């Protein structure tokens, strides 16, 4: 038997949830370790954030953190939604809404990261 099975949406969504979960482990833990242990919360101020967000590498890092964490959470939320919503049409509407929320918030987050922090506006 050589025929491959057709990839379904559920398969792709599940795979995305697993990969994002695996990626979140180093991304989130390094973020916590860096900010809370190496730098320390008391040393973090607007200048520190501005320096960090001026670096394209850190912007990319933060964007991936946002993207994967949010996608992972949205998948979980969709699974929980299925527990309470049983009509196929309503499920589809909620799924599309979750996708839109994910896209909008990720875009807003990406714009915020790209714009960086501007200490002069705070001071």
């Amino acid at each position, binding site marked *: *038997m*050589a*025929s*491959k*099975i*057709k*990839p*379904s949406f*559920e*398969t792709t*969504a*599940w*795979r995305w949830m697993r990969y994002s979960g695996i990626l979140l482990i180093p991304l989130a833990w390094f973020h916590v370790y860096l900010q809370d242990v190496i730098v320390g919360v008391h040393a973090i101020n607007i200048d520190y954030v501005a320096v960090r967000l001026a670096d394209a590498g850190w912007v990319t890092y933060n964007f991936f953190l946002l993207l994967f964490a949010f996608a992972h959470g949205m998948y979980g939320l969709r*699974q929980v939604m*299925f*527990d*309470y919503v*049983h009509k*196929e049409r309503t499920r589809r509407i909620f799924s599309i809404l979750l996708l839109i929320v994910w896209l909008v918030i990720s875009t807003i987050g990406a714009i915020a990261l790209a714009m960086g922090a501007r200490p002069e506006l705070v001071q």
Partner: protein
Amino acid sequence: MLVYLKIYRYNPEAGRNVPSFDTYNIEAEPTDRVLDLLEHVKGNVDGTISFRRSCAHGVCGSDAMRINGRNMLACKALVKDVGTEITVEPILGLPVLKDMIVDMEPFFNSYKSLMPFLINEDVPADGKERRQTPEQLERFEDTTKCILCAACTTSCPVFWSDEQYVGPATIVNAHRFIFDSRDQAANTRLEILADHGGAFRCRTAFNCTEACPREIHVTQAIAEVKNAITSGGVEH
């Protein structure tokens, strides 16, 4: 020892529309089974109590019920293991018809949807039988042990809330054929399980593995099915 037995009662035909409990104090041995206690009550105290039982030896799977909150076969649950205060209820997630008897139709409909039978259009090489190596048998042997008692499916929190989910038992029985080297419809089954209500609804709560009276590694079987789907199917 004296056992305090609490039995779930529901019988709309006899006017017991609201589920309630009847309680009994029974003299029992530690090695008595919960089924023995139920038989004692039914035979000597109240003949209206209803529950399914057939072989009474853990093979037919008809007496799956919730004993002290956990799905078990009443014929395999010993008093010394479950304690002297025993609550017996029907399995969850299927409509209760009467006392411990639930409507198994949704469970078997789900089971049948995955074609739980060998599909092979070819004539066997020797014209008689399809041979298999011990290694090929080992690949799916664990899931052949299923007795369709529904203990796994009705212990699954996803199944309780989502009737579209096929449930662990259906996936276990699909696994039994998907990984059988003699079967030719593995990928058809995997496509069904890749869709809504299929294997990806499993949240790996492990309730099914704990509930299985045959000690099948149910969650592992579901994970193997998920892997088979994401890797594009099974080739024998």
